[in-house]
């Protein structure tokens, strides 16, 4: 059940009405219990068999959290934390990485017979695992007290608006919201609806439209010239941004309608003037997670320059691996790490020179590099990404209308470019779509809904980040 489907619209409508009816009873447990059941029903639509996995992960972390808090001895606390790490990372490893590591091992050592399991990746496992991990780590560090209410905790882990693709919420932000009474707020609701419609616009109108061109080119990289390949890579940059940020906006909007506040996950990342800036604006919930739970524990920036470089590479390679069990993601992460390190070196030694470079040029340069790195992300394997780069650097810009349009017609290309322009124009809207008057919300939603209905791409296409 995708957020961009009619079935979800009906599901959410029923949940919304019933939830606020139950909330009138002013009993947090009833409200949370209802959200928990709704979340489990939502997840069952994907694959009910993996419901047990979420329940197992949630209950074990709930118990471990309490035990860590109650424990007086540091060794005991450490042992419990390790248990939580082994359990969570073990689940993630088994379901997401087992086959990848086994196959890579077979390739490296040229073993003919390997053990390969037919494992289905449970939807959202990377997201909820990181969420529960942060909970136990925060309790271990003394930053957070464990939840006393198991229903609140289970709902925090499985809260359906952000269950399958984040944002990866911190327990310190979201969990207290499950422990307090929610009341219906008109302005928040209007804001929530606007976030949902804007998210749908990004997904259905822009991302799904760009996907037509991108899929056509990536399906047959060999037969396109540099012109089409460059267009496809730029389109993919915008596709993945609109797809994922669209999902995050819908998740935030749905949560707002239920009285919850989720963190902002994207902040116009392609306007970043540096790589550091880019990672402050892109998938913020994941990048801050890695910063707080990996980069800083490794020593962060308060070490020797060599150690900082090491830390950056570790974080970005693991970040790449988090996205998927494929060398393409590892390469993507590695090169992001590489350019961050390069940027630090340039800032360290040539600060005065780059100070004079206008911001728009910096933005342009960062975009070009980020755009190139997305080629790794989108390719099926390393060979395909190398072929893609090779074909681009052939510099074959011969004019062939059919090829430039990726065999999808000039109108599709014109619309795709127009939608990117429309996206950039939408940046002129108030920050985070917070309008001052309710009539502005009304006007914004009318226009956005009409654009979606009129220009939306047919079909309920999956969100890209669901596969992670």
């Amino acid at each position, binding site marked *: 059940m995708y957020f961009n489907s*009619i079935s979800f619209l009906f599901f959410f409508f029923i949940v919304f009405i019933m939830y*606020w009816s139950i909330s009138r009873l002013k009993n947090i447990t009833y409200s949370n219990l209802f959200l928990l059941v709704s979340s489990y029903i939502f997840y069952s639509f994907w694959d009910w068999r993996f419901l047990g996995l979420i329940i197992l992960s949630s209950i074990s972390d709930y118990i471990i959290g309490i035990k860590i808090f109650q424990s007086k001895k540091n060794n005991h606390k450490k042992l419990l934390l390790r248990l939580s790490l082994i359990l969570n990372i073990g689940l993630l490893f088994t379901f997401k990485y087992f086959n990848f590591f086994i196959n890579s091992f077979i390739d490296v050592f040229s073993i003919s017979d390997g053990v390969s399991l037919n494992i289905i990746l449970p939807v959202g496992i990377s997201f909820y695992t990181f969420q529960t991990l942060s909970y136990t780590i925060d309790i271990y560090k003394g930053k957070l007290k464990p939840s006393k209410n198991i229903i609140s905790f289970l709902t925090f882990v499985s809260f359906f608006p952000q269950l399958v693709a984040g944002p990866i919420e911190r327990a310190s932000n979201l969990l207290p919201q499950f422990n307090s009474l929610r*009341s*219906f*707020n*008109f302005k928040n*609701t*209007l804001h929530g609806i606007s976030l949902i419609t804007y998210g749908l616009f990004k997904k259905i109108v822009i991302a799904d439209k760009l996907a037509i061109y991108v899929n056509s080119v990536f399906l047959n990289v060999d037969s396109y010239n540099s012109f089409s390949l460059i267009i496809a890579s730029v389109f993919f940059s915008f596709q993945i941004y609109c797809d994922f940020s669209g999902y995050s906006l819908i998740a935030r909007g749905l949560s707002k309608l239920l009285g919850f506040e989720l963190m902002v996950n994207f902040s116009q990342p392609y306007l970043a003037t540096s790589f550091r800036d880019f990672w402050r604006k892109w998938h913020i919930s994941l990048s801050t997670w890695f910063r707080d739970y990996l980069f800083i524990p490794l020593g962060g920036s308060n070490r020797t320059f060599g150690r900082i470089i090491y830390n950056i590479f570790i974080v970005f390679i693991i970040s790449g691996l988090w996205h998927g069990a494929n060398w393409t993601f590892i390469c993507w992460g590695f090169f992001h790490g590489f350019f961050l390190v390069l940027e630090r070196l340039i800032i360290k030694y040539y600060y005065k020179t780059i100070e004079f470079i206008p911001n728009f040029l910096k933005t342009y340069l960062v975009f070009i590099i980020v755009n190139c790195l997305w080629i790794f992300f989108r390719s099926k394997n390393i060979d395909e990404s190398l072929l893609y780069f090779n074909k681009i650097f052939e510099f074959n810009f011969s004019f062939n209308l059919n090829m430039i349009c990726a065999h999808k*017609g000039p*109108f*599709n290309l014109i*619309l795709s470019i127009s939608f990117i322009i429309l996206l950039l124009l939408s940046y002129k809207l108030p920050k985070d779509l917070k309008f001052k008057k*309710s009539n502005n*919300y*009304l006007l914004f*939603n*009318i226009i956005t*809904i*009409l654009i979606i*209905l*009129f*220009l*939306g*791409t*047919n*079909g309920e296409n999956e969100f890209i980040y669901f596969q992670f």
Partner: protein
Amino acid sequence: MNLSTSNFSKFLIKLIFIVSVISFILTKIFEQNIILKTQTSGAYKINKIINEDLENEIPIFGTSRAKSNYSSSIINKNCFNYGVDGISSKIWIFFLEEELKKNKQKPIIINFDLNGFRNYLGSNSNYIFNYPSIKNLTNQHSFNNNLPLLKYYGYYEYYLTEYLKYKFPLNKIIDKGGVYSNSIFSDSDFNFNIIRRSKLSEFFKIDSNQVKKLFSLINATNRKIYFVISPYHKSVLNNYSNLKDAFQFLRLLEKCENVKVLNYSEVELKNEMFFNTSHLNYNGSQLFSKLLLDSLKLIDSENFN
């Protein structure tokens, strides 16, 4: 109901009302000015066959092969090409059924494909879901099909593209419902097409329900019906595993008094007459239509002269 929920209800009602009104107006404008003005689109042809009753019109029914192979202007000034892309016999039988509801005496031309009777409907954009008969035909009973804007959701671009292609045909020639490509492929491109096509196994298929319906329609009318097998590239015919069955069926069809079968499948045309191995280009359609007209003049001089 507190102030917040009451305000929200008002907001929601306003939003739904305004979106519905604008949607309704936009849908009507789009339907009347784009969809129903594109003579070459399936939706236009469906609408025309259901609503228009032109006494002298000679319809040509069939799939994309009908659309690209028959030049209406050459065959008869009253001909209209009802060929639709991506459809199968199920749809042209529907066209025939609708045509026979009209009180007319003019003959009917049906382009018969050698793959026989199939059930595919092609894209939803071929249809206009304003009629119960179309909803039944396509089995599209979804509630969305009754809502303004939602009923064409995802197909606006297609309709608009078709409209623009119709209004500004760049490398195509448009003629009374027919669309003909005027590009000629190089030998290497055409050979590539032959190789690609040769990997497909083709066969004639019978669907007993469709055959039964076709015979009942033919037997219930005294209008002349010409089943025409327009030319295929010889490489396609070689791929068919049971051509004999197809010709046996056509012989059976010809036993009906008002049916005449005209077989041009084996007429050998040069490669430059084809758009691809099963569709003619503009020159090919002109040539074939002249050949067809010569035959029709001999058989039915009253209607074709």
